[in-house]
């Protein structure tokens, strides 16, 4: 079980988080049908670092992008996404 540093809550157990998908598989609302399906149905799926979308579902419910190595599980960066936030 990894430890993920939520941009809002600090380091928390992975049990509080849910993986959604990789950043490269986000289907933009205005994507053309071809682009949308290519994005939805293909992945880099690297044996290395990828940008993933996780949600702190059982914590602050915020979404974030986690840059993680798929073999070592090293997390090199995490950034918040979503609307503007009061500090």
């Amino acid at each position, binding site marked *: 079980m990894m430890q993920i540093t939520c941009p809002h809550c600090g380091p928390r157990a992975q*049990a509080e988080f849910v993986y959604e*998908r990789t950043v490269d598989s986000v289907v933009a609302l205005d994507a053309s049908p071809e682009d949308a399906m290519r994005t939805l149905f293909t992945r880099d*799926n690297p*044996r290395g670092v990828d940008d993933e979308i996780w949600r702190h579902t059982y914590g602050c419910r915020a979404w974030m992008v986690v840059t993680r190595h798929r073999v070592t599980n090293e997390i090199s960066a995490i950034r918040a996404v979503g609307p503007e936030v009061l500090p």
Partner: protein
Amino acid sequence: MSRYSAFGLLRGAFNGQKHWQPAWRDPEPKTHYDIIIIGGGGHGLATAYYLAKVHGLKNIAVLEKGWIGGGNTGRNTTIVRSNYRLKPLHDLFEFGLKMWEHLSDELNYNVMFSPRGAMFLGHSDADMTKLAERGDAMRCDGIDADLMTRDEVAKLEPLLDMSRSARFPIEGGLIQRRGGTARHDAVAWGYARGADSLGVDIIQKCEVTGFIRDGDAVVGVETTRGRINAGRVGICVAGNSGHVAGLAGIKLPVESQTLQAMVTEGVKPMLNSVIMSQSLHCYISQSDKGGIVFGGDPDNWPSYAQRGNPMVMEHAVAQGLALVPALSRLRMVRTWSGVTDMSFDGAPIIGETPVENLFLNGGWCYGGFKATPASGWTYAHTLATGKPHALNAPFALDRFERGATIDETGTGPMPNSR
């Protein structure tokens, strides 16, 4: 190849079993093969075996980056069954199940296929209707499936918690009596020995690092043991499908995730069948050595780590104990994890790729072991003829962009919702 038999073992009693030969050779790679299969797991070795046996091809190599059978073939829960709801799936797996029934004799290698019954438990009337629907779909296509009453379930597995107050009370089950388990390592070894005896070169410690292209076509592979030319190349690397296809510039509809399983210390026989559940996500059986083999959900996030996660394991065990409380004082002695290539409809991909002469067999998610013979058979057909067998035609790679997905669970493209 020296034939395996009881007589051979008896003879060995007098010579210290010294007459046995290596089960497969350790050849140097040649410079050219007609067909190269990347991946020396059960599927790859079975493919090589059927290419040689059925299609009469002689110049075949299996390239394995580690040691054969070391991937998901050696990291599963050994369950064999064909009880799927959707026709393309149950037809493919049933074809395989029929092959399992004679595989030990076919290979002269005891794969210990034990058709002790694969049973789904139902925990409500709604579950039982869903199980009946699955069973009816199978029966109409000529595959065995029987609904079981509560009493029949209790008789088959007396240690199940049959109380009405159970969190997931058992209302009955659906059994495929011809389903069961097999000795996973033996499947790889048996196919390897069979393929080797037909002239297939099994080359271990040979990792493919790139593809050699001539225009749009693949004409060979770069490996850690040098360049090898090939007429056709078949990828068959399970959890590494995305990685190897990526070497050819292909992005796949798969995401690699970890699936872990575990086994307890051995105890005298306590479970008689393979127990699965319509509402829970665990599967339980007892190995011949007495260990209770346990599997659960995949980890639900991408990973190539071959390492499990305690929370997923603990959840699977909780589910298992809710079904079989007597497991409580047994001890988990070993865990293992496989990297599964979770496809975006939960079904495998067997067929051509956009690159000429390059073929793919992957996307088996966490259900590939049982398909080993059928996968090998259909993939061999595809590689030998360049066209899919009728059984694997529905499992083409382009089905996702076309919209012809085979979605057994109806959960859509996200593997983590499966």
